[in-house]
């Protein structure tokens, strides 16, 4: 089949602002959007620029705006996108570096702010710490995050308030707050109770739609804000 592919392009050394370019690409219905981008880069225009690595939805490199929704380019098949027309743009709300590449530094800085690591300061036992299957299941969903930024950059609250710490950072805080082995839940809840924290969430659910790992992000945010409220009462 022939695909009418439109890509929002931007070269900071040449362009004053982004512009749409059109490409016609021969493809199979089971091809993924990443395959289309490679066909353009390797057969039509070598300067087309995007990040990608594992190409099967695990590394989180190729999140972008595909037909108006944040998706991983390696996880969307053409037959899921309707008839023959595909638009691709960089993730919204993040500074564009070149073509489909956005600046991720601010995103990772917010991630680092929530102490995204296990804090367990006592002497470690000789063997593993015990954790029951139920305790392990309590935070399972939020361990799946691959830090692709699809959720945070889909969030209207983040677009309006770029200081908002964003769903991805809250998901990664959740992963430790509800881990029975961790000792720093209080500190994380304090960070997330600040002005740039969880209160910006308006339960719009864009993040849930955007997450390529199927994480119930809004629920995780609500559990974190619930824990903050509980702590205060």
């Amino acid at each position, binding site marked *: 089949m022939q695909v009418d592919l439109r890509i929002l392009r931007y*070269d*900071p*050394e*040449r362009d004053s602002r982004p512009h749409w370019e059109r490409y016609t690409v021969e493809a199979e219905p*089971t091809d993924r959007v990443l395959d289309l981008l490679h066909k353009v*880069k*390797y*057969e039509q*225009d*070598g*300067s087309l*620029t*995007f*990040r*990608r*690595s*594992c*190409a*099967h*939805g*695990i*590394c*989180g*490199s190729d999140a972008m705006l595909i037909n108006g929704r944040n998706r991983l380019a390696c*996880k969307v*098949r053409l037959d899921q996108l309707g008839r023959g027309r595909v638009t691709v743009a960089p993730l919204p709300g993040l500074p564009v*570096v*070149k*073509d489909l*590449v956005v600046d*991720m530094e601010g995103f*990772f800085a917010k991630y*680092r702010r929530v*102490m*995204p*690591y*296990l*804090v*367990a300061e006592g002497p*470690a036992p*000789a*063997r*593993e*710490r*015990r*954790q*029951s*299957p139920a*305790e*392990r299941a309590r*935070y*399972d969903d939020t*361990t*799946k995050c*691959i*830090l692709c930024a699809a959720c945070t950059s889909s969030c209207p609250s983040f677009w309006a308030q770029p200081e908002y710490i964003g769903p991805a950072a809250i998901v990664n805080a959740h992963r*430790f707050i509800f*881990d029975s*082995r*961790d000792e720093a839940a209080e500190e994380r809840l304090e960070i997330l109770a600040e002005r740039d924290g969880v209160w910006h969430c308006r339960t719009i659910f864009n993040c849930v739609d955007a997450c390529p790992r199927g994480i119930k992000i809004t629920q995780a945010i609500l559990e974190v804000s619930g824990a903050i409220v509980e702590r205060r009462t």
Partner: protein
Amino acid sequence: MQIDHDALIVGAGGAGLWAALELARAGVDAAVLTKLYPTRSHTGAAQGGVCAALGNLEEDHWEWHMFDTVKGGDYLVDQDAAEVLAREAIETVIELEHMGLPFNRTPDGRIDQRRFGGHTRNFGEAPVRRSCYAADRTGHMILQTLYQQCIKLGVRFYDEYHVVDLLFEGGDGGDGGRAAGIVAYRIADGELHTFRAKAVMLATGGFGRMYRVTSNAWSLTGDGVALVYRHGIPVEDMEFYQFHPTGIYKLGILLSEAARGEGGVLLNDAGERFMERYAPTLKDLAPRDLVSRAIYQEIRAGRGIGGRDYVYLDVRHLGREVIEAKLPDITEFARIYLGVEPLREPVPIQPTAHYAMGGIPTDLDARVVRDDQGTVVPGLYAAGECACVSVHGANRLGTNSLVDLLVFGRRAGRRMARDVRGVDLPDLPDDAAEPVRAELAALLDGPPAGAAESAPALRRELADVMMDNVGVFRDEALLTAAVAKIRELRERYRCVRVSDRSKVFNTELLEARELGYLLDCAETTAVAALTRTESRGAHFREDYPERDDARWLVHSLAYRGPGGPIMRTKPVTITRFTPKPRTY
């Protein structure tokens, strides 16, 4: 621009990150460079688990793990290294749990364990529960956990810096020189940075992208392996490249061996569980080299599905609960990439290029060695898939890649922390980056456009010849043709020219550079495969179908010579287990 650190790690997968943790704990000024972001590293794609003889569900001993590793590697494993691997697997897995890794748990709260290919109890009697796992996302959890701890300890990262050269002081790497640093290309703005260090560690991963069908990420282009080779240090056992039996048909995306560890089976067109004929004891859990060959033999005999070039992986009988709790990701892969529902349908699979057993030769402390005597290259270290210590010999067992990068990444960090004390920073000339600056300029300015070659076209031709001629079944004619083709591609590579002239995020330029690395890896693989006139582990020669211990119970070393690789040998270390015929 020149930047100084006491220790420098190239690559932010499991090996590099663990080494960084050790250096940070020791208070050493260390930094990690990666051409990606750390959490994009391919360690994150590992699925099934990490083996350690914890004995949480049944009796197990590190000696059994060591034996399985040696036998799995068809006795080409260095047994002193396999002993370190099997012993230290236990403490590294426990330490990972202490760092927060969310392992699946037994009902009484200990780390759960499951079966995996080639891992047995009591020296080969039957499969054993040895693989510690977190659903089918074990690599993801390892990568995240190590990165999280690096953040906790404030490790310095240079994200999206692409290594383009290694620097030595007092002679090249192969002539007694000492590692002095690296040159890296900052992807954000195209600037070359010279990094000076007392210790340099390569943790750059594998090079599966030299094949057409591969489980490997686009970024796995053998950067560290090729750079070492270019500086006169040999690469070891390059002929041993593993094809994983269960890649998604045509795409090569991995479907973990955990599917068979949980009870999944392989079926041919007649619906027969054919592995019972090839490996009566371990059946579908035989090592990967055997299973991949068996699949191709079924296909050649016309028993592929519908007579075509794939067979089925069947997990339907495991039931929804096991599949969704223990194999969720690979189930989703089948749904997304094949449109197949594994709960109701068998999944089409074919072998996929997966793992390099060979690579940069090292000793037990991950120090790079440059000859058959074990002469150390001062200041240079390597661990993980890019290295060859050698714990995998001729064929790696499932999960041992993770064990390898954890155990030897940790050892590398500890050794570097000791070695940098009391040592001065090396001297580097002001023009240290000039040779590679000229190489990059040639890709940009090269020959006139009319004569120019396209890097993507050459890369496709390379991937085709490697897949068709240097794959699971090999012979002299195929390999001779492959070597000739790779040399033709090398010549044409000199005329490669990129169209993107920009400084900012020029991935076209870097992919052309990566093609050069892949050509080095491919040439050494093909020449080493042509030289080894026997069959052992993953290296199967149809014209020499038997293992030949009298002549070939030796590692190979490929040195860079003016007309191509020069092949030599190096003895195998044998301590506990004398080579025997390998049956399962």
